[in-house]
Structures are given as C-alpha cells and as structure tokens.
C-alpha cells in the first residue's frame, strides 16, 4: 500500500512537470507559427506592444496575463460580447472613456453586501433576453442618475441595438 502510494505520487509529480513543460513548448510553437503568418503591419504593431510590455510594471504584466487566462475561460458568446464592448469603449474616445472610468470607481467603493447583491443581479441579468435587459437598464437607478451627456455615452456602450 505504501509503495503504491509512493509510486503514484512520483508518477503524478513527473506527469505534472512534464505536462507543464509540454504546454509551454506547445504555446511557443503555436506563437512562432502565428508570428510567421503575420503581415509586416501586424508585426510592427506587436513590436510596439512588446516595447510597452517591456517597460511596464510586474503588476501590470501579471494583470494582463490573468485577464488573458480569464478571458479564454469564458464561453465563445461571452468572449464575443466583451470584444464588442471593447470596440464600443474604444470608439468613445479619451473623454468618453474618462466618464466611464469615473462611474466605474463607484463599484470599488461598494460595501461587500451590496457587491454580493449586485453579483446576484448580474447573474439574473445575463439570463435575460437582450430587449428585457435594455428595459431593465432604463428603469435602473443608475440610469436615472446619469446626466444627458453621460446617457449618450452609456447608450453607445450598453444599448445593443446601436
């Protein structure tokens, strides 16, 4: 029994290490192929990103890696929705993005209880059809408290019929 456990432990350890090294190599090989297939323009853009990456802090690098992992853990539908949201967010321009960021700061100051409630509402909201979600949004206190200018910005960002 003791020997069996020992063998299983050693075997799992070897497998884990091997799997880790193999996954690393697989990513490297796949990235190499992607790099070779890129156009010169794309390569220039990646090089620009690389320079920013090199000069950024460890925290930022770790945050980006974590976001990458979390994003790829989402369903295809959710991934597409986030990509679309990003496109809209980028189209707002710096002033619009600042307005959104100011509103986002409110979430950080939320008490823990409200945060849990908001998460429950978020889960319910995800299950609603798009038109119902929009009605929900228009009825929300958040919407009521926005200025006309802010409403225009959030319309662009959140209304799916845009």
């Amino acid at each position, binding site marked *: 029994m003791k020997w069996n456990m020992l063998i299983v432990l050693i075997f799992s350890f070897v497998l884990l290490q091997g799997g880790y*090294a193999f996954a690393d190599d697989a990513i490297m090989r796949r*990235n190499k192929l992607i790099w070779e297939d890129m156009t010169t323009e794309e390569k220039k853009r990646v*090089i620009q990103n690389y320079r920013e990456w090199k000069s950024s802090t460890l925290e930022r690098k770790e945050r980006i890696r974590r976001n990458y992992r979390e994003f790829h853990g989402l369903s295809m539908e959710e991934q597409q929705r986030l990509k679309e949201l990003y496109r809209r967010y980028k189209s707002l321009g710096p002033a619009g993005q600042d307005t959104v960021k100011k509103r986002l700061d*409110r979430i950080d100051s939320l008490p823990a209880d409200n945060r849990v409630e908001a998460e429950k*509402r978020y889960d319910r909201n995800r299950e609603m059809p798009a038109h119902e979600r929009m009605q929900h949004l228009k009825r929300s*206190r*958040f919407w009521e408290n926005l200025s006309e200018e802010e409403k225009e910005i959030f319309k662009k960002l959140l209304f799916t019929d845009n």
Partner: protein
Amino acid sequence: MFNKKKEEIVDCKITRDMLPAYQDRAMAESAARNIEQHLTVCHSCRKEDVELKNAWYMLGTWEDCDPPEKIRMEILSHRAKQRKMRWIKIVVPVAAALFIVVTLTFSFKGLQHEKQTRLQLPAAPTQLSAEYPDVNEDELIAELHVLRDEEFYDTVEELVRIDYLPLIDEPKQMERDRQRSSLDVALT
C-alpha cells in the same frame, strides 16, 4: 430425545470452557455446584478435568534452564538482523523517493534556467533583431498570445465592471414592488 442429546452437548461445551476457572475456584458457588453435578454424570468431561489437572501438574514440575550459549547467540544475532532490516525497509524507499523527487526537481529547474538564459542571451542575429536591436525575438514570441491584443487584455477587467454598473442599485420598479408587497403584508 434429540433435544436431550443437544442439551448434553451444550452442557459439555460450557463445562469444558469453565474447567480452568472451576479448578482455580474462581467462580460463583452455584455455578461450581452445576459443574460438579455435570462431572459426576459425564464421563468425557471428567476425563477432560483429570487431563487438565495433570497438565497443570506437569507444568509445575518443569524447570527453567538456559539455552546453550551458541543457540542464544544465534537467536540474538538473528533478532538484531531483523531489527536492522526493519529500518532498512523504511529508510530505503523514503531515500529512493527523495532522490527521485530531488533529481526531477533539479533537472526541471535546470531546464527552466536554460530556457530563461536562452531568452536573456543575445539571440542569433535574425532579420528582426537586425531591424529592431531592442527586440528579443524569443521573448516576443513567448508572449505573443498576450501581446497581440495587449491593450484589450489590459481592459478586460474594466469591461466586465461596465456590465455591473447598471446593477449596482436595484431597478426602481423592483424596489417599489418590494416596498408595496411588504406594506401589504404589514396591513394584513
């Protein structure tokens, strides 16, 4: 008839189990009387009783004697060997397991280190490094999956929080409904 035979067998079994206690007088008087009665009628149990008494007597006549020195030494050395073997049986597998784990860890760390130094060393002059001397091609390729959409991945957390914004407060309608229903309950 059959039941009587069965009772006798049970009596014999009980009596034989109780014989040592009976002979030591370590039992209740009534139980001892029952056994005595049974012994007067049962020949085989009486025989068992006598044999047991004889065995105790024989044991009493035995004398302790030391084994010959040669045999004693052999037994002791065998015992010592057994003790040593028991330690070896524990130590060898643990040492083997430790050795394997340490070797694998070091070889893995070595591989990782080699990989890292390969990344840090100036890469062989390729077209890319000739054109962009500050770019380490291996490092760039290792992070390419992130670098392709670096800005997007940097924003993902914010994008998810944007979805939460309208949900921080409960919708007004729902709040009003809830208030009304609690009022109804209070009135009833």
